[in-house]
């Protein structure tokens, strides 16, 4: 709360831009973030969803105060990153995209070393390192070198390390990229616990299931801009139907079938058709009923699948292409 009693957002960005200088003299710079507005409140889990190159990581680096914005206004914890980088970073936890851990040190020593950077007394770091190893489920590995750790363990250690200064805000850049499904679920569980303890989470991802699992609110980014903002449910309601009927036809009939389907759908109840290279998506409030209509029209798909709408459908609608492009 500010002095006048109104809740100020923890993070506030207005017209935030980032242009990297040209690689060659006289060349054109690269605009990674083209003017975005968002705010994050205390205790929220806030996501940046978008394909590679959307500007998510650049935004994250600006939030981490290691990349000065080239335009617009950014306030973090009420401070200006251009001026108060040190003080902001003292209250941030950063989990970079790659695990940048020290292979020569043991698991515990990696935590101790990070504590040095925050100027924490030895005794405090030792005590916190013990608790964090417990939290990251790495007590058994504490004295081992990094080489014996799996990808999921390394990621959990990176997260444990980022918590050594008991941060107000945790920045996670693609936290589960490259992990197997089980390791992802373990990680989501840990992140969920942190959120319950009041840590504000900011994460980037190109996985819609991750965004749906973790984020209270998210922005969909594409080409350096924000396409829309809201909770996963809000975004799905705004941009998609309740269900999706996915149909696959033999390759030679694909186009013809797509045309026929477009004539069949009832736009008055929000139905529409999205033609992908390998399949046709029919957005509909009731997938089974639509499938019945399709079958009645003598169309024979190779496969037919009814599923709920996801953020992938939102992105497809907003950007006209799939997230994994």
């Amino acid at each position, binding site marked *: 709360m*500010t002095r006048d009693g109104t809740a100020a957002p923890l993070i506030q960005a207005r017209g935030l831009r980032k242009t990297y200088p040209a690689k060659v003299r006289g060349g054109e710079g690269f605009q990674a973030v083209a003017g975005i507005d968002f705010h994050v409140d*205390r205790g929220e889990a806030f996501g940046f969803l978008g394909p590679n190159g959307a500007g998510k990581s650049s935004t994250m680096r600006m939030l981490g105060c290691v990349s*000065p914005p080239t335009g617009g206004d950014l306030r973090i914890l009420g401070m200006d990153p251009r001026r108060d980088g040190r003080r902001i970073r003292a209250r941030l936890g950063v989990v970079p995209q790659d695990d*940048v851990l020290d292979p020569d040190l043991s698991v515990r020593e990696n935590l101790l*070393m990070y504590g040095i*950077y925050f100027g924490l007394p030895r005794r405090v770091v030792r005590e916190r390192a013990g608790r964090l190893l417990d939290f990251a489920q790495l007590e058994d590995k504490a004295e081992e070198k990094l080489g014996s750790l799996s990808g999921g363990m390394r990621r959990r250690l990176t997260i444990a390390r980022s918590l050594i200064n*008991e941060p107000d805000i945790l920045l996670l850049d693609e936290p589960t990229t490259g992990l197997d499904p089980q390791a992802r679920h373990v990680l989501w569980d840990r992140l969920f616990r942190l959120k319950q303890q009041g840590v504000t989470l900011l994460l980037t991802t190109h996985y819609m299931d991750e965004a749906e699992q973790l984020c209270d609110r998210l922005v969909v980014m594409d080409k350096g801009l924000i396409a829309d903002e809201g909770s996963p449910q809000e975004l799905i309601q705004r941009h998609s139907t309740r269900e999706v009927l996915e149909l696959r036809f033999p390759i030679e009939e694909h186009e013809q079938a797509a045309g026929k389907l477009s004539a069949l759908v009832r736009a008055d109840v929000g139905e529409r058709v999205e033609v992908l290279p390998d399949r046709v998506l029919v957005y509909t409030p009731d997938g089974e009923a639509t499938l019945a209509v399709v079958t009645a029209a003598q169309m024979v798909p190779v496969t037919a699948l009814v599923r709920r709408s996801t953020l992938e459908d939102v992105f497809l609608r907003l950007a006209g292409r799939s997230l994994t492009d």
Partner: protein
Amino acid sequence: MAVTPASPATFPAPPVSPAPSAAPPMFLREFAARMLRYRRTWRGTVVLSVANPLLFLLAIGAGLGRLVDPASLNGIDYLEFFAPGMLAAAAMQNAFVESSFAVYSSLRRDRAYLVAAATPLEPRDILAGHLLFIAFRVASSALAFAVVMVAFGAVRSPWVVLTVPAALLTGMAFAAPLAAWTVTVGEFGRLNTVFRFVMMPMYLFAGTFFDLATLPEWLRPVAYVLPLWHGVDLCRTLSLGTATLGTSLVHVGYLVVLTAAGVVAALFTYRRHIHL
């Protein structure tokens, strides 16, 4: 694990950061982190930074040097002549390894710089802490080498105690400019190029192994410009007891200017390349 949920009262942050007076300065944190890592890795570095120069000292100074008639060096034993030159050259080589390969790795391989940059440290703190660590490495290796020189009886003057700071200064005159440049380098191979075409020729032709007076007259001015020659001559004259104040000040001045120029350049390049 209990991450203390920050109470609303702690936001916004108090206007003056109440940094506890006990917290060490930022650049010392980078130094301390590097020392923690060094405690696990020092064994591997001793071979290159201490054992190698000592082998040179034995093979060339005590072995090959017997073939050199002291009369050709104004009555000086070749070992006495060569050892302080080797001290300076080894300082250059240690500085090179620590400020090229290690700096490159800190930005692009193990990425220790980026880890530190996510904490309250600014690029200039990271630079200062790393240079301090390089200074520690160069000085400790030089000290070990100097002790062996004394044990071999390869010194003539008590001024030899000043060869350790002289070697340190020689090392830093290379370390600072090299770190400034390396942090901008994207391709590892370019470091090897510098090693082969800058460091090695200097190692061989800056007077480490022979008196520059034996060079043809037209080539001597080239050798006198080489930074390593100033380090070699400074260490050698101190060890032999022939140092004069004027010449020594010229050597020190030259090396200090190089170091300072390197630090100024590095302040700029470190900011550019760590805070993208």
